[in-house]
């Protein structure tokens, strides 16, 4: 039995073959012991995989999950560097950019050493279990969605 027939046998098991090819494979199974053995092995493997498959539950809703992926793709697309213009100053620019970086670091170090101290710039967020958080950094919005069943707590306001 050739490789193509083996693949068709797998497709037959998955119910993916068109009717004419499915009939061919059924005939093959009626005549070829090797095909029968392979078919049985494939079927056993599939049943074993189905039985041991572990379901994975997302800690957040599907809309939130996909929205995060979508936003990350959008952010990466936006942050792709623009193509470099070909000009006679390209070599100079290659030299000036690292030099400018060194100068900026020196200025930052100077300000850090002598510019005095300010409040902390980092953010800390602590959330209880039973809630998940969605940050929209561009809009400066943080949404904390509660899975707490607060179905009726606000009913007196809404009705």
């Amino acid at each position, binding site marked *: 039995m050739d490789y193509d027939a083996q693949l068709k046998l797998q497709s037959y098991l998955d119910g993916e073959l068109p009717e004419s090819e499915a009939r061919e494979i059924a005939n093959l199974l009626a005549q070829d012991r090797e095909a029968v053995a392979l078919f049985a092995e494939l079927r056993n493997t599939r049943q074993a995989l189905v039985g041991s498959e572990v379901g994975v539950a997302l800690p957040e809703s599907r*809309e*939130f999950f*996909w*929205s995060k992926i979508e936003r990350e793709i959008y952010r990466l697309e936006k942050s792709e560097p623009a193509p470099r213009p070909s000009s006679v100053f390209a070599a100079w620019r290659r030299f000036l950019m690292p030099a400018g970086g060194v100068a900026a670091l020196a200025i930052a170090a100077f300000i850090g050493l002598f510019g005095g101290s300010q*409040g*902390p710039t980092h*953010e*800390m*967020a*602590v*959330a*209880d279990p*039973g*809630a998940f958080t*969605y940050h*929209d950094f561009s*809009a*400066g*919005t*943080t*949404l*904390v*969605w*509660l*899975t*707490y*069943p*607060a*179905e*009726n*707590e*606000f*009913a*007196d*306001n*809404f*009705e």
Partner: protein
Amino acid sequence: MRFLCSLIVSALAAFAALSAPAAPLKIEVQLIWGTTNEVSPNAEHKSIGPELKKKLQELPLKWTNYFEVKRIDVDVPSAGVATVPLSQKCRLEITDRGHSTIQVVLFGKGEKVINRTQALPKGETLILGGNAPGATSWFAVLRRLD
């Protein structure tokens, strides 16, 4: 002598400025109802502003229309807690943790539902939300006013 007096006055002024209590945080709290209906059945509900509407519509939520149920401006003392009643069964407790950081505790039916501490600089918005009856939603929107 004149120089000495001015020095003393300056020192006293500086001491008074340092020892004066910090100004309270001014925070606006809005209770919002989210729905897919075009109009609210409650005539007391108001339409929300375009800025907040845009923020909410940019979030991955299924609701299309939002109505303001209640708006409360609250002063959070630098060393105290401000309580904001959202409904008869729910309230928020807001504490100023310094450096533009606030602690928000939501109580429902007397029980603590969530305790969150995070930075809330001016211009940023913190929204607590959840499901409400009839496949609608509620939101408590917190914004710094000063």
